[in-house]
């Protein structure tokens, strides 16, 4: 049982490698934000795993917070990219 949860954590950790690669090497700013998006998704999966492992519902609230923060972060970066490109900021 706990071994299976550890397997979950290892698989999610494997998925962070491409995400970190995109975040660090880009090549464009949009690529970095996509890497960040993927890392947020993995963080949500990991916090759900933490909830299952500890049998506490607080980690589900953490997952909701992560979802909202990821949304706002992506919107802010998208706006920055758009302003840099000289587009309108709508």
């Amino acid at each position, binding site marked *: 049982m706990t071994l299976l949860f550890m397997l*979950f954590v290892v698989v999610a950790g494997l*998925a962070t490698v491409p995400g970190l690669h995109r975040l660090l090497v880009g090549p464009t700013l949009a690529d970095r934000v996509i890497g960040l*998006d993927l890392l947020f*998704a993995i963080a949500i999966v990991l916090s759900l795993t933490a909830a299952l492992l500890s049998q506490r519902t607080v980690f*589900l609230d953490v997952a909701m917070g992560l979802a909202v923060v990821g949304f706002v972060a992506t919107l802010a970066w*998208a706006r920055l990219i758009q302003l840099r490109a000289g587009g309108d900021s709508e």
Partner: protein
Amino acid sequence: MTATVGWLVCGLALLILLIAALGVYRLPDALSRQHAATKAATLSLTLFALGTALLAWDWAWTWRLLVLVTILFATLPLASHALGRAAADAGERERGDDR
């Protein structure tokens, strides 16, 4: 029974998450990478929430997971649309698309 199905759904969700990560690593341009990161990751997160609900089998968990999935469904398309449009405005084009 529900626990077994829950484990299977969680495993499937992690497999899809790995495929999404592979897509983000391998696809050739920002717009394709975003297609992998958004759609596959949304499916993966939804399936993982479903698997968690099946494993916990408790209303205190189920309603929180439903709120989480609702937040994800409401925000992920908006965020990916904003980011995709910004990337397109910044001159990002699909590889092999010589406009």
